[in-house]
């Protein structure tokens, strides 16, 4: 018999992890059958399944069993390990929820090694395109793929390219937008750091299709490693003759430079980004004219997001039709999400468009971090909205998220549980947009500020019932009249929380209560005398003199003096202080 390996992990949720016990049981059984030398049993930290009881994976056959009971262990050994027979009642299908197109090389190749990228089919698409494709053919291929911009708005990439291609101009430009600024999103950084050559290759194919000879990477200066790796990759490409004059001996010539963004969120907006590259102050311009017609220094310019460009080589190599097979009717391909918040497996995931939020949270994310239930999922960062738990089974694509009052955005996905206050979340995102507003247009500059004031009143217990209606009016004005996407979408988190969590707003306004316990000024701290062990820890930690008493008589909290800092609540080891 060949050497076998059994991987095991107890994936039960809400019960003690019994992996070690099963491990010894299996070891004993193997010894009984004299198999201890030909089978290795390995405890693993994560087996790719969640809430499936004890999961076993038998290698090299890749047989997976779920919900394995103690009594099943013997048949698994005698029938599957010794007899090569699969037990259908236990067998699980592989949990293949992720599909890696953009992240195909991330973590697989050395990003600083040019040959690693070549060995992984790197620059093969570029070679195919510049040695055998006409410009129109490249655009046709993209049209067939249905690829849409991954920066947030979801504009079809082929249309952008086609506009720029059709304009006659002495000089055209292509720009990679690496000014990722949404709180909680970092997929662009990861692609730039993990697979810089694929972004360069995607950019070169775009340049060939529109007839550009100069490209710019606009990357935020807060990503030093990404900048360093892109710099190295560009130098290598020049060295091997894949950048510069007459690439691979063809007529095609292309140069790339890097421009660093100084960290202004608004510079992710395309007209502000172009102004910043030109060395001007980064503020948006009214559109039209769109950059594809009149962009950098008045010349046609295509601006694509990092993730969009990383998709391009695969599309050209495998064909637009192949790419178009994945995804939903109007949203093709995959999307990378930065899955964060109250979730076990936080990190970057890539799923086909149309995957349900439930699959993402429970089958990839591994479920919630605590026993507290899921409350909502926030997508799209400060331009997006929240999706309450009732809509967990909705598929994720551009149209559907918009229908639910959120957006795809650049791909942040923050999972929230019962401990999160949605009014507070809305305030956090709005505050971010108010701070990042460039101030050029009044609806965004004044509207955002006023709306934030109203939200602060509500979370401070000074809100009135008319505030919600006022916020809705301001939001409408901002959506209609702001110059750029920042102002037009800044109110989305507020609007979507009002839509789905009106009761929570009402509690804050009428009952002056925050159930989640996040809004500090709505909290009331009290000492529960039954639980108090009179240790005095709260007294020594209260710097405002709000707690008085002694070890004999116990302690009392004077709410008039209490500043609601929460220190006593944190230090009490007996949970004798209540808040709420």
């Amino acid at each position, binding site marked *: 018999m060949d050497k076998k390996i059994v991987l095991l992990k107890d994936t039960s949720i809400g019960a003690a992890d019994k992996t070690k016990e099963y491990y010894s049981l299996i070891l004993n059984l193997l010894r009984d059958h004299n198999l201890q030398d030909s089978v290795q049993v390995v405890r*693993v930290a994560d087996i790719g399944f969640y809430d499936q009881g004890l999961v076993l994976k038998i290698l090299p056959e890749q047989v997976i069993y779920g919900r394995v009971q103690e009594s099943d262990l013997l048949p698994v050994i005698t029938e599957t390990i010794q007899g090569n027979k699969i037990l259908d009642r236990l067998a699980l299908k592989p949990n293949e929820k*992720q599909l890696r197109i953009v992240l195909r090389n991330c973590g697989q190749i050395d*990003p600083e090694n040019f040959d690693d990228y070549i060995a992984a089919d790197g620059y093969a698409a570029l070679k195919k395109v510049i040695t055998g494709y006409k410009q129109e053919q490249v655009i046709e291929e993209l049209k067939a793929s249905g690829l849409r911009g991954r920066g947030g708005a979801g504009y079809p990439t082929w249309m952008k390219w086609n506009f720029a291609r059709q304009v006659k101009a002495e000089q055209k430009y292509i720009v990679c937008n690496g000014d990722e600024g949404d709180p909680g999103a970092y997929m662009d950084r990861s692609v730039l750091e993990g697979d810089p050559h694929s972004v360069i290759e995607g950019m070169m194919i775009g340049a060939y299709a529109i007839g550009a000879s100069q490209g710019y990477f606009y990357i935020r200066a807060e990503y030093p490693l990404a900048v360093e790796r892109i710099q190295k990759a560009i130098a290598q490409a020049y060295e091997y003759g894949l950048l510069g004059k007459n690439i691979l001996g063809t007529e095609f010539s292309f140069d790339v430079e890097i421009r660093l963004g100084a960290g202004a969120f608004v510079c992710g907006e395309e007209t502000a980004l172009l102004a910043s590259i030109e060395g001007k102050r980064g503020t948006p311009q009214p559109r039209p004219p769109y950059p594809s017609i009149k962009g950098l220094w008045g010349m046609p310019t295509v601006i694509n997001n990092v993730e969009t460009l990383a998709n391009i080589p695969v599309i050209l190599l495998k064909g637009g039709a192949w790419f178009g097979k994945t995804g939903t009717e109007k949203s093709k391909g995959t999307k990378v999400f930065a899955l964060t918040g109250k979730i076990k497996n936080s990190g970057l995931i890539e799923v086909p468009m149309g995957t349900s939020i439930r699959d993402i949270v429970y089958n990839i994310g591994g479920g919630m971090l605590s026993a507290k239930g899921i409350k909502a999922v926030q997508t799209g960062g400060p331009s997006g909205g929240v999706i309450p738990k009732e809509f967990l089974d909705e598929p994720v694509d551009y149209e559907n998220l918009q229908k639910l009052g959120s957006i795809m955005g650049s791909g942040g996905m923050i999972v929230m549980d019962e401990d999160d206050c949605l009014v507070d979340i809305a305030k956090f995102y709005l505050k971010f947009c108010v701070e990042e507003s460039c101030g050029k247009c009044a609806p965004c500059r004044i509207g955002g500020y006023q709306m934030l004031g109203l939200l602060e009143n509500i979370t401070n217990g000074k809100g009135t019932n008319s505030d919600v209606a006022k916020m809705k009016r301001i939001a409408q004005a901002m959506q209609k009249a702001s110059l750029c996407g920042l102002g037009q979408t800044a109110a989305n988190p507020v609007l979507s929380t009002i839509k789905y969590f009106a009761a929570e707003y009402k509690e804050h306004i009428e009952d002056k209560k925050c159930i989640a316990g996040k809004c500090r000024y709505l909290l009331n701290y009290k000492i529960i005398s039954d639980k108090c062990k009179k240790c005095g820890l709260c007294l020594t930690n209260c710097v405002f003199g709000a707690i008085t008493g002694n070890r004999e008589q116990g302690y009392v909290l004077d709410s008039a003096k209490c500043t609601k800092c929460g220190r006593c609540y944190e230090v009490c080891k007996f949970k004798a202080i209540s808040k709420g």
Partner: protein
Amino acid sequence: MTKLTKASFDQHKAEIQATSKNWIKVGMSTCGIAAGAEEVYKILLEEAKKKNLSIEIKKCGCLGMCYAEPLVEVHVEGVPQVIYGKVNKDIAIKILEKHVGTKMLVNDYIFDLALTMKEVRK
């Protein structure tokens, strides 16, 4: 390096694809480095040299499993290719001794997610 042309591109690719050997990859993007991947990488290099193991130790980007950083992926002929997560100095040494040395997998640190991620490859 001389500049590649249409013809020499394929030749170059064939040459580098032919070399395949045992390797260890350490995830060294911002997330990995923040979790201590530099230290793991250094100890792997030092120990492999000390133990005289013939294995290539490479840096690579982020696999996306940020919750389990630092990540170390190991490919040794005759052992299934696996990803170890939450690797520290001690585990790194154990991986070299057990996985590379005696071709046995190390307990408790494998994040077996290969099946949850379909790769786009030929």
